[in-house]
């Protein structure tokens, strides 16, 4: 099953990194692992980007509420 959370994706990438350090690994395996690890990192990055957009939207909303106003 695919790991969904940001933390899980990062952990997966770390695991892959460790496996890649194994000197016994074949070239074919290492390419596969590299692909999988990079995929996790890309997905994690996407989650960060989405979170950033959300935070900016919330901040802008709060800012709108707090703009000065007077008569």
């Amino acid at each position, binding site marked *: 099953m695919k790991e969904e959370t940001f933390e899980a994706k990062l952990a997966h990438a770390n695991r892959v990194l460790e496996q890649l350090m194994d000197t016994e690994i074949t070239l074919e395996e290492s390419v596969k692992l590299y692909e999988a690890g990079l995929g996790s990192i890309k997905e994690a990055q996407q989650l960060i980007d989405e979170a950033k957009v959300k935070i900016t939207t919330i901040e802008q*909303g709060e800012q*709108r509420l707090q703009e000065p106003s*007077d*008569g």
Partner: protein
Amino acid sequence: MKIETKVAHFSSPLYLESGRILEPYEIAYETYGVLNEQKSNVILVCHALSGSHHAAGQYPDERKPGWWDGLIGDGKAIDTTKYFVICTNVIGSCFGSTGPMSDNYPSEEPYRLKFPVVTIKDMIRAQMQLLSSLGIYHLRAIVGGSMGGMQALQFGVDYPNLADDVISLAATYATRPWTIAFNKVAMEAIRRDPRFEHGNYPRGAFEEEGLDGLAIGRIAGHISYLAPDSMETKFGRNYVNNDGLFELFGRYEVERYMEYNTNNFSRIFDPLSYLYIVKAINTFNLARGYDSLHEAILRIKARVHLISFSSDYLFFPSEMAHIAKMMKRNGQEHSYLEVQSSYGHDAFLVELEKFEASIAKVLQ
């Protein structure tokens, strides 16, 4: 930028336009920058209805800086490396100057409704007392927006030799019925709120749970400070997340804005002060005390700079243009700028980038 906050005490009477006397009284004020030896670098800044003397800078315990922080500071349009800026809290307000909840000397009871009605003229007369107590008899400029802009103009008329330049934004020569009607909502909502108790509420009564009447009245204020287009841009038809569309009290974003701002406001601002200051705005008329508006304006010796905002629904550009027209006819030195804006009245607090260069130029 050097900031100081002080309170000045006056034991001599302040003679009010109504014939009544305020004695003793206090004025809270803040200063920015350093006064030069000749005392020739002073700029007076005047605040609006719910503003205070805290116009710039930010204290460690504050969430927001002063209300014109974008305009006042080192290297800003009102440059505090060059000028000594003073902003006072108007009398009648609730941020440190004498107002309806101050002690009615010699008793320790607040004035409440016994506080005299004060006018824009009275507010500036009090500021004159402060200036002379500081040994300041000449100002490089007076700047203010909305009710602050009224004060700036009134200074120009009542004390013609005081300032070199008067800069008035988003104001008028006399408050029109349209604005008085908006203010009426606030006055009635406060008066009819049972918790207002005809002004006999205990001190600090609304700090926890604000006064509903003031919150409701302030909604009318906020409508008049914005404009149809600015509301469109700010909120559109957006609905509050997690509020249901078919929930009777589910809210559009614009409703949340009104609730958020007015509920907070009613915890901070004293309802009696609100009534007194709104009254001062309503009674504002540059011509009062003179034969006509023409006579009043003719007295002005300062260069006057009028800045209006095209979408201001509280004080319309035509009102400022009217003053400019009279000054032009009289051959008096002045400038008039109508800033193109869809933001409404509040543009004078928000869209600083649209007029700060004009102010900086005047103060060069």
